């Protein structure tokens, strides 16, 4: 048998919703990956769609956590002073 490859599995719970990564399977090829993914990730869950993606085809970021998380904790960037959907400021006094 040729060696197995790793396939990342994405599941959509309901039509129109986003596909979310739920795990991976090892398989020979996309077809057997899909056969395995179907029984692994949809047998007890709502499911309206599945994707399998060869891990080799995923482009991963080369930055580390320090770079990727650098936006975390910058509260001043959050639009909390603004009431979403109303077009109004929650606090008039922004001084």
């Amino acid at each position, binding site marked *: 048998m040729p060696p197995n490859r790793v396939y990342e599995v994405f599941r959509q719970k309901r039509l129109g919703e986003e596909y979310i990564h739920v795990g991976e399977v*090892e398989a020979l090829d996309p077809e057997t990956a899909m056969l395995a993914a*179907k*029984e692994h990730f949809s047998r007890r869950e709502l499911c309206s769609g599945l994707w399998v993606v060869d891990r080799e085809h995923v482009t991963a970021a080369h930055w580390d956590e320090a770079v990727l998380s650098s936006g975390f904790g910058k509260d001043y960037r959050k639009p909390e002073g603004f009431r979403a959907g109303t077009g109004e400021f929650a606090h008039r006094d922004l001084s």
Partner: protein
Amino acid sequence: MTVAASVSAELIKLADEELFAGHVLTSVSGWGPELEINLAMSSMGQDELGHARLLYGLAVGTDRDRINDLIYARPPGEFRAAALSSVYSKQWEMLVVKHFLYESADAERLRLLAGSTPELAEAAAKMRSEEDFHLEFWTSWFDRTARIDHARVQKALSALWPSAAGLFDFGEGGLFTPASAREAADDWSSRITSRLTSLGFSLPSVAEEPVDDSQRILDEMRIVYNDAPGRW
């Protein structure tokens, strides 16, 4: 719903086959070549056990005790399952060939069932949503396994093909008309034969050794029931 005794007997035959196939699949789930396949086999085996219960319910009503009696207390000689459904091999080629034959024949039988009463058609539709996938799974693995080890697949076909015809062994005046059952059996048989011969396989009509593991399945399934009668 009450059905005629002859119809009930044939629904029970279908249920027995799903019960045997399901028991084997859930029992061999540590023996597939990979974790992914083991989990899929176990899951599909549970589907088959569910279909067995559904079909028993259609045959005798949904009373649990009656269904349990059919499964656990019926004399083994009264089971009419085709021997193929009982084959209890842990060899991958045997599993693949068994289920390729079983699921492809079962698809024909579900088509027959779909043309029967509305209640049976509804059950057939429910089962098909799972069986279509089972057929795809085993067909795909049959094709791959045949490419990888033709000789071992031939050996499994020689052992199992002769017992597959029993899947269409229905009586007179039961669930299906004899003509429709025969036609479905012939369609299936000629389709499978031409597919397999084109892949270079031969299909002997008689097996060297008969295959029937139904007693082993019943012994396993009934361990608790027999050990603790009335208390299980």
